[in-house]
């Protein structure tokens, strides 16, 4: 009995092996699947899997093989995993990357091997400028764009001064620079906190209150956003100084932030209620496939990455060795993005709209995010001039 079982197993393996090795599209997916920010990686994986479901689990008639790798939110680990995907798995595409510092560490490996890398979240300024590459595309944004949109909104509101707080790593610096690039009022203070280990922001909040700034801007993705809002509310500052955010309130943090998040505006390129047909289907099917969960912008960007890959492979009729033709096709952004149509800039970063989002109670009585207004239309990042591709 036992022998028969092993034999069957061995046969199944023998049969399965050639099917995947022969002619499939291989995609490596690097994201964070362990530790406190694993929920973000899971959301990206869920959305990517949903995109494959919508594509019938095939790209141009070929089966798709996705290899998920955990970067543990560490640049060195991310680089190792990228090397493994490129050198030993020989993937056709690498997708993912939540964290700018992880992406920057992994970038060279992918570019040197001429493997297409699609960032589904991280958008460090270097990637848009000096380090831009024909093999790198983004389905998200350049880090400065979203906070820059928030800065524009703060001008509209007539805010005169701001105190900036963010984490001390590549994205944190881009984000605060982004607000400063558009905000017309006075920046009275700027604090960076140790990332990702510092979770208590009492010293920074005290300084912000004592600075007499009219407003506070923060960027704290993941669990840090929950902690910041907790402490902001507990210190009573919520009643005194309004808060403006980028990437701090999303569908993953909202169930933990609860009422602390009400009334705090954020800027985003994708919101769950954007009224296009693809987005409606995505949000509905996601909630059906993963009961109890709601998709985030991280997921929407991962979904778009799958669609972008599909468009490129279909254009070359499945011949993934035609890299130039695939690049040319991807530059057209010829797919139905969940955020609505967008164009690529010369540096392969989307030129896109940014929306103002607010926290409201939805029909189920749950807190959810809602589009309030369009802050800026067809916004292009300010680093594209530094990119050598024209």
């Amino acid at each position: 009995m036992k022998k028969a079982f092993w034999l069957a197993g061995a046969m199944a393996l023998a049969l399965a092996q050639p099917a995947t090795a022969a002619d499939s599209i291989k995609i490596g997916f690097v994201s964070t699947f362990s530790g406190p920010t694993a929920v973000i990686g899971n959301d990206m994986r869920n959305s990517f899997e949903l995109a494959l479901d919508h594509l019938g689990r095939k790209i141009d008639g070929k089966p798709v093989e996705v290899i998920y790798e955990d970067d543990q939110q560490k640049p060195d680990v991310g680089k190792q995993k990228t090397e493994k995907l490129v050198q030993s798995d020989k993937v056709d595409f690498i997708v993912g990357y939540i964290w700018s510092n992880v992406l920057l560490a992994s970038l060279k490996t992918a570019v040197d091997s001429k493997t297409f890398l699609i960032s589904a979240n991280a958008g460090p300024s270097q990637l848009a400028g000096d380090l831009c590459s024909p093999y790198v595309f983004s389905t998200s944004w350049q880090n400065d764009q979203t906070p820059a949109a928030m800065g524009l909104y703060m001008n509209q509101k007539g805010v005169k001064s701001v105190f900036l707080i963010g984490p001390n790593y590549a994205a944190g610096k881009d984000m605060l620079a982004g607000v400063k690039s558009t905000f017309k009022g006075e920046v009275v203070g700027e604090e960076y906190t140790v990332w990702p280990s510092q979770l208590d922001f009492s010293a920074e909040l005290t300084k912000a209150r004592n600075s007499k700034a009219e407003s506070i801007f923060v960027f704290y993705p993941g669990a840090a956003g929950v902690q910041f809002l907790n402490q902001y509310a507990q210190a009573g500052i919520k009643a005194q100084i309004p808060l403006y955010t980028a990437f701090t309130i999303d569908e993953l943090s909202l169930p933990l932030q609860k009422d602390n998040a009400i009334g705090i505006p954020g800027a985003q390129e994708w919101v769950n209620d954007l009224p296009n047909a693809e987005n409606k289907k995505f949000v509905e099917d996601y909630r059906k496939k993963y009961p109890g969960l709601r998709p985030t912008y991280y997921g929407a960007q991962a979904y778009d990455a799958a669609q972008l890959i599909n468009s490129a492979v279909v254009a070359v009729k499945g011949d993934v060795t035609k890299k130039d033709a695939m690049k040319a096709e991807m530059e057209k952004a010829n797919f139905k993005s969940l955020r609505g149509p967008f164009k690529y800039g010369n540096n392969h970063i989307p030129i896109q709209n940014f929306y103002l989002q607010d926290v409201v109670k939805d029909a189920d009585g749950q807190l959810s995010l809602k589009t309030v207004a369009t802050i800026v239309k067809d916004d292009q990042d300010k680093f594209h001039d530094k990119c050598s591709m024209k």
Partner: protein
Amino acid sequence: MYLVVEQLLNGLQFGLLLFLLAAGLTLVFGIMDFVNLAHGSLYMMGAYFAATFVAWTGSFVLGALMALGATLLLGIVLEYVALRHLYGRDHLDQVLATFGLILFFNDAVRLIWGPAGLALPLPAWLTVPVQIIPGVYYPAYRLMIIAVALAVAAMLYLVVMRTRVGMLIRAGASNREMIGALGINIKLLFTLVFGLGAALAGLAGLMQAPILTVQIGMGENILILAFVIIVIGGIGSIRGAFMAAIFVGIIDTMGRAFLPDLLRKVLSGAAASTAAPALSSMLIYLLMAIILVLRPEGLFPAAKR
């Protein structure tokens, strides 16, 4: 001026919280000569228990008390089932075994509560800022942490210095074999001490929970600080842990609060902004290194044989 007062309070609050964690660690390390890396897991369990019980009972205080009892029980069970078999082994074995426990607790939490973490909301009466001196407001909840931790420190002092159990604990710290030979049930004493340490860690975890989020691995970063504190204060010394925790809390907070502005006077804005957080997080390790050079036994070493 007000800014300094507020930042001092922030440092004091952080330090006292660290003291709760370090007190349990120093008792177990000093008296039982046992290295317990899983102390941070007990801190995490305290937070998870509190989030669960507060949601069940609807009362913050009741839920917190239940969580305290649950961590105490968990500590006793853990000592009885696993750790007492490791007392005779060398420190490396203990480190390995308790590191295994960290992995065990992290995955147990993932199975029971899921990977997303929990929120522990505060009751409304604790979310208001309190005016401590005219013009200075301070979060009520952080004041409560200061009050509770000071009360616990005072109680701990009384228990250790003024009661019979405390006498045995101190005797055990100076010479374990001797008090065993005098007919004291040292196994029971160890179980009690470990349970007490677990409850203190649980208390730190549940009090920190509303400020941070309740999440897997929350005890690991803070455990390193707790080890720094017991090294600075002197291993096995409650008084040392208390003083060192307050030092570390205040130095860490003051560094974060004032170092960036100081550096900006010397360096360019961007370089100062980048260097300051890195430097300020190094300050406490610098302090530890200096103390190890000048007083290797720590600031307030426990009396040895």
